């Protein structure tokens, strides 16, 4: 007896789930069908912008291979859409007219781009038909569109100051396009970053050749290109930003309509409990961008502060890995064991690391409070819970900015701009929930030149030759006793007889001796 598992959607998260389920498929405990709307098997969507600026190839983006999977016994349906789920019959009806039975159904339908309400763009949110010269940069075909613009050195307008928009803008500018980022609010990244970080970030963008139009409200698009395509983005102050390609980067929205259509509960995404099960439906699960972990228990503490889907791939991959373990146990008929599996731990607040070459930035958590903001810092500091503390470093002239928001020495939020090693370290500390050194400036110095150790040693009692353990004093002694070449010193003291790395230092000691003698 084996279970039929059906996965709807074949993006990066689904690909991971398929990978993790392969042992059960090979072992005959599970039969697996995966349904993908696109004609390609899963590819790495995170790198679509890189593809769009010519930094990688479509081949290199592949996360799965349909033929390899078929050879493993997986039923892969590409270019097919799931039209409807019949929960009573446990069937998925597909756009090619076939139906697939499921014992377990996993929604991995992902998300679709948010298309703002602009005159000149079809506002139907479910199936926006974007006019020529406008793209939301979501799939391989969108990447081709961007590629043509970048290769032609065209003018690219990026609408949206989120991290994906900034990454696209930076990459396109570096590869030769003329790029303008249009965003609302005083600085890019909106509420993810604080004012200081946002200001240094915006300056960094400009330094990288990206024009930044802040506090801008867009109202429509103009189609005056010779081919009838996009020619300008119109703003509410009556101005227009001319361009050849508009990249819309205004966030994503979970694709929930299939789930809604079969009566599952949805919030921002498809609502699932801590075992990734749809509410009140033991046969259906959801993972990745389309899933919102929020259990039916109104008293659940973990769910009280839960945010919706993050839009990042990391949490989805962790869900896929966990769910594969759970489904494998179910498929093996070990329901009791599956119930004992510890639930997936709640996700840490998301960390955003800017994927860019010329500009380093990481942010995480709520960075709204300022060091002097007594009210914000003490809010929540009750029942012995320590108050928030903030350490901050701002050097806008050199494009550097760091803010660490801690509680009890552990990071609750961070901003780092222009300081790569500090960013890497802070993100690690944040993710591990590790305590920061009491002297926070240690973290700032990671990027400083004093971190690179100097060569040699000035202290005469110090060791010059580590290999043989010979001090500078011993070498000086040998020189005073008549050694005048490195070889002679080596013979007399063994210094320099190991790795040879100290030969220059020995030579220096000899020269110093004879210079002193001459003088």
């Amino acid at each position: 007896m084996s279970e039929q598992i059906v996965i709807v959607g074949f993006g990066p998260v689904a690909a991971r789930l398929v990978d993790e389920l392969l042992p059960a498929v090979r072992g005959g405990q599970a039969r697996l069908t995966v349904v993908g709307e696109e004609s390609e098997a899963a590819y790495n969507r995170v790198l679509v912008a890189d593809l769009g600026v010519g930094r990688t190839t479509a081949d290199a983006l592949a996360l799965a291979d349909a033929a390899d999977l078929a050879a493993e016994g997986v039923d892969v349906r590409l270019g097919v859409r799931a039209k409807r789920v019949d929960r009573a019959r446990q069937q998925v009806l597909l756009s090619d007219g076939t139906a697939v039975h499921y014992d377990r159904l996993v929604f991995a339908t992902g998300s679709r781009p948010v298309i703002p309400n602009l005159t000149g763009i079809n506002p139907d949110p479910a199936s926006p038909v974007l006019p020529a010269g406008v793209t939301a940069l979501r799939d391989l075909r969108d990447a081709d569109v961007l590629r043509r613009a970048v290769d032609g050195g065209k003018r690219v307008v990026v609408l949206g100051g989120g991290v994906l928009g900034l990454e696209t803008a930076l990459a396109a500018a570096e590869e030769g396009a003329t790029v303008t980022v249009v965003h609302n609010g005083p600085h890019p990244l909106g509420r993810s970053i604080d004012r200081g970080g946002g200001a240094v970030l915006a300056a960094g963008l400009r330094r990288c050749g990206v024009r930044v139009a802040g506090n801008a409200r867009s109202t429509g698009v103009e189609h005056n290109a010779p081919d009838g395509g996009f020619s300008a983005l119109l703003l509410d102050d009556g101005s227009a930003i001319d361009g050849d390609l508009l990249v819309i980067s205004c966030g994503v929205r979970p694709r929930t309509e299939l789930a809604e259509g079969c009566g599952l509960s949805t919030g921002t995404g498809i609502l699932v409990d801590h075992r990734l099960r749809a509410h009140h439906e033991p046969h259906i699960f959801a993972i990745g961008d389309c899933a919102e972990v929020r259990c039916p228990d109104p008293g659940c503490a973990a769910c009280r502060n839960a945010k919706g889907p993050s839009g990042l791939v990391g949490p989805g991959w962790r869900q896929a890995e966990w769910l594969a373990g759970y489904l494998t146990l179910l498929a093996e008929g070990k329901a009791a064991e599956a119930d004992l599996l510890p639930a997936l731990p709640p996700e840490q607040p998301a960390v955003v690391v800017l994927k860019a070459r010329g500009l380093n930035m990481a942010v995480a958590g709520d960075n709204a409070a300022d060091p002097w903001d007594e009210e914000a810092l003490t809010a929540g500091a009750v029942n012995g819970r320590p108050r928030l503390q903030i350490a901050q470093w701002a050097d806008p002239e050199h494009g550097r900015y760091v803010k660490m928001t801690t509680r009890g020495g552990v990071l609750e939020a961070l901003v780092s701009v222009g300081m790569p090693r500090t960013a890497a370290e802070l993100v690690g500390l944040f993710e591990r929930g590790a305590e920061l050194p009491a002297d926070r400036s240690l973290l700032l110095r990671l990027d400083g030149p004093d971190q690179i150790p100097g060569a040699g040693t000035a202290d005469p009692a110090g060791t010059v030759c580590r290999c043989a353990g010979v001090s500078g004093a011993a070498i000086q002694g040998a020189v005073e006793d008549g050694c005048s070449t490195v070889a002679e010193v080596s013979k007399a003291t063994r210094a320099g007889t190991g790795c040879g790395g100290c030969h220059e230092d020995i030579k220096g000691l000899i020269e110093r001796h004879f210079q002193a003698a001459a003088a």
Partner: protein
Amino acid sequence: MTKSADTHCPYCALQCAMTLTSPADLAPAAQPGPGPVPALNPAPALEVAGRDFPTNRGGLCRKGWTSPTLLNHAGRITEPLLKGPDGVHRPIGWDQALDLAASAVRDARARHGADSVGVFGGGGLTNEKAYQLGKFARLALGTSRIDYNGRFCMSSAAAAGMRAFGVDRGLPFPLEALDAASTILMLGSNVAETMPPFVQHLQGARHAGGLIVVDPRRSATAAFTADGGGIHLQPLPGTDLALLLGLSHVVIHEGLADTGYLQERTTGYDAVARSVNAFWPERVQSLTGVPADLIRETARRLAAGAQAGGSYILTGRGVEQHVDGTDTATAAINLSLLLGLPGSARSGYGTLTGQGNGQGGREHGQKADQLPGYRKITDPAARAHVAAVWGVPEALIPGPGLPAVQLLKSLGQPDGVRCLFVHASNIAVAAPDANAVIAGLRSLDFLVVCDFFMSETAAEADLILPVLQWAEEDGTLTNLEGRVLRRRRAISPPAGARSELWIMARLAERLDAPSTYSEDPETVFEELRLASAGGLADYSGIDYAMLDRGEAAYWPYPAGSTGTPRLFTDGFAHPDGKAVMVPVVPRRRRPSAADPGVNAAAGAREMTLITGRLLEHYQSGAQTRRVAELLAAQPEATAQIHPAAAEALGVTAGSLLSVANSRGEVVCRAELSTAIRAETVFLPFHFPGSESANRLTEAATDPISGMPEFKLNTVWVRPVAAPDSARMLQQTEAS
């Protein structure tokens, strides 16, 4: 009369060439010295000088320079010692000793079966001894239970190399080839401390600004990247695999891969490309703490080096001694294959073998699953060949035994090993979860240890058999390049010490063993040649006369050939001649259980323990701790921590620290250094007793290689108010 012998250093796999000379008139035994350093070293019986050789170019490190002081050391064991009922070892004669050992074997066999007798070998044994030990175990003892300390050393890289290339030779190229390279990526290897003369071969890359060192500590080797020498990547402990996947990601996505090479010389590219796709630099930055830009720069440098000058990727124990060590070595190999390095004229991949004969020691049958010539013990053709050389029916050769950690876990167990022979290994200090190992040794019915000092393992033995040191014997070793070297006798051994070859021969007689066991190294080597013929590690074309003429003999060296200085130039050792790329990804680790119940005392902090080596000491320190000069330089274990961690713990340099988890506790002094990450504590593993780092390491093993987890363990660290009595006692014992 002055006489001299050209030989090689007794310690690591670099096997620096040295000349040993007897002084014309031996100095009288040295005067007892004052102070804390015991005067255990009289004037050395031999003088040592570095000898010009392609690997060490006349260089020696402090360990090599001081090695002769051990020959006439006051603590040398020169008679067989039997432990009395009172626990005291007393001298006995050789006949009695051998009779006792033989009867212990017969006893165990009669009561518990042949597999109740075990053998634990070492990577320090000569090829001849390693070969004969494997034969002795299988035929004279009739046991499958033989393994060796190389399991703690080379097993992960060996398994990865076999899987990818079809053969495992640490460096498949002469060491000198590194000199011309413009880029060298070293992962988890601190050669500046472990084999200092090696560093000469890094200078070319350093001058080209292309020395890239991956180490969570700014080790002495990592410090060579300063001043334009290259790049130091400092990942979180245990994240090397993710870092390597990130490098491969950049190589593929930036079009730096050698596509022609991949097509012609490898299989498995597509699956590897898909698997690294999920490791883009910024994600890897979050996993490893290494900035994304440095990941990109490293990948580009490697690719540029492969085009001009040459690029090499070298791995060491730091990335291999993990429960995912085989996968990490595989990821390094995959990266090298993407760049087209292995088998090319000026580039390559290699792993740095550690122990003196770590290479030869893993080829000739002291591994649980192997027969001589790097043959598989499960391969019928291999069994038939070796059985024919040994002149025994194939059925007499037992099947595969247990890898080291499992073998040690079985000590004293009902179905486990009850009588154990230990050669060239100090498992009471060097094996993981050392407290459990010591308990296992104590639960044995009979323990025989062959050693020349009262090592911590010998101290547990029922019977200690005194053996020879390097300068007292002839033989061959195979260095880290796969080059076979001659070890030559320079001095007569103490009257009561015997070669292990002799011991095996005498025991085999007493046990009425089939086949022959010679005490003459050259005779054994001649048999090894036949046994290895046709195997992966084929020595059949090598003989003592050729080595004595100074010829460079790199295996495989089939009879009639001229050997193989550079492997893979025409193809890899798989049937289709192609290298196999195997996708690997980090698995979620089982948390290493530091028991919060232990040391939950106020002020204890959870930290990550990494272990490693000091320049002055070798392995368990059984030898180097007995060299006065080395002991004076590094007299005790110190725990290296970052000043920020010290501040949080409220300790200063020299304060006593307790480093503990559920497996044990180490008490030692703190050393403050900014070279280490703030959440990490470093301990050298050369010290015994309450300073023994391996009391803390976990005996969890790599599923493929059996390598234990030495480099990533969770510990609680807290200050200790005053030196406690147990520690003081330990100090006394050590001296």
